[in-house]
């Protein structure tokens, strides 16, 4: 079974860390990941930029672009994509294509990545 693990925290705390504090946390997380890395069982990992860098595309026939993160209400996180784009515009276009292809009422949040490792997972 493959699992995705999501990290939740207070961004005003995490983004308030000094470089030294942040490096220490990353080093500590790397130690925790080691077992899975060595067995080739760790998939992609990413750190996101703050929610202030996010844009949301709401599903509709003509999808609506809204500044800011997707504010969690009744919907649940169901999945994610990682894409490489030349511009925010291109990322929003992709999200709009996804939004048009769905007949439900959710949203896609477009959030730039701070850090990305492709990982070693096959399949």
């Amino acid at each position, binding site marked *: 079974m493959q699992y995705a693990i999501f990290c939740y925290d*207070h961004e005003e705390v995490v983004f308030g*860390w000094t470089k030294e504090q942040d490096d220490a946390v990353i080093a*500590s997380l790397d130690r925790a990941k080691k077992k899975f890395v060595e067995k080739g069982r760790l998939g992609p990992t990413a750190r996101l930029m703050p929610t202030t860098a996010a844009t949301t595309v709401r599903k509709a026939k003509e999808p609506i672009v809204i500044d800011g993160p997707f504010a969690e209400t009744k919907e649940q996180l169901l999945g994610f994509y990682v894409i490489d784009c030349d511009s925010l515009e291109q990322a929003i276009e992709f999200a709009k294509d996804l939004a048009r292809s769905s007949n439900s009422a959710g949203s896609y949040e477009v959030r730039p990545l701070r850090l990305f490792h492709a990982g070693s997972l096959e399949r």
Partner: protein
Amino acid sequence: VSEGIDGAWLDMALRGARPRALSALLRYFGQLDAAEEAFQEACLAAIEKWPKNGPPRDPAAWLIFVGRNSGIDAARRRGKEKELPGEEQLSDLGDTESSTAERLDDAHYRDDILRLLFICCHPELPATQQIALALRLVCGLSVEQIARAFLVSESAMEQRITRGKNRVAEAHVPFEAPGAPERAERLTAVAAAVYLMFNEGYSATGGDSHVRIQIADEAIRLSRLLLRLFPDEPSIMGLLSLMLLHHSRAAARLDAQGNIVLLEDQDRALWNRDMIAEGIALLDKAVRHDRPDPYQVQAAIAAQHARAPRFEDTDWARIEKLYLVLEGLTPSPVVTLNRAVATSKVRGAAEALELILPLASQLSSYFYFFGVKGAFLLQLGRLAEARTAFDRAIALAKSPAEAVHIRLQIDRLTKESDSSCRPTSGFPNDPC
């Protein structure tokens, strides 16, 4: 992180929660002193309880709730007869803690925080008082830290802050939710003060550099907060982008002696890539609104520098265009001066010099004007005139770092006259 919570986490959580908690308490008690005192009590309780019981999910809500109770207790102790909320609403801090506080404050907290910021940045206060007040009240820096940053004694800073508080108390900023135009006005005033705060931390070279960097960090934190409150406001996206892109160079712009390192001489490997990436992401968002303002255009200029792997790769033609746009938005001789630096790279020093000569009377006491003029003259091989301009710049330098910076130019000048000329590019076009 490791199990339990450490001091750094606790400190950041308290500081992160401060604007929301303090502004909610201010709404509740109606007076800055009472709100501050209640917040202080709540922090003491947090320091005692969080390490033992684990941190609450919503630190701000916890602090608001505990602060309200302690404030009410204090009022009781002083024997003031007031209509107080029923005991059942206040006494249980169990599971309902965060939901109660949220119900009380969430609807208003955006305007509450804006109000608190607006009080600190009240147009009636001089700029230095605005910044000191915001650093003390909203960011929670100690009087001692702020005094160190501004190179004044602790008692003088204490006085400045107290005077500021008294003045805003007399200004009677109403508690009612503001209308849309008023809200926009407040946001503009607050954004301007946050930018001043950033420049105070970023530009000045006197004082304790550690505290100064912290002040620039605080300004960035405040504009992140503003953008969370007003997520679709392009001017705040531009402001935050601008500050991140400039601050990304912090480690490269001063040498070991604390002297300014020119943009062209900076070690770009020291630039903070995370800040650059975030700054550019925010600029992309702002641009989509098609409402350029000075913050956004300055951010676009900074982004051009950030994108260039080496100084030689800088897209000066693009930067020249952006300065033209900036001149259109905020005409000023200083902006023209900056445009001229870009012009000199694109079309040569002769045209650039033509552009700045008419500014001489307006910028007759401006350090950078003579630095730039000297650099242009140097490139044109007019060495004696270049020296006169550099001497004037040194006379106008406000800090040793500025003077050293010009002396380096003069050293180059001396070298130029000794050997064959390789025109140097001279000066930073924006505060490096």
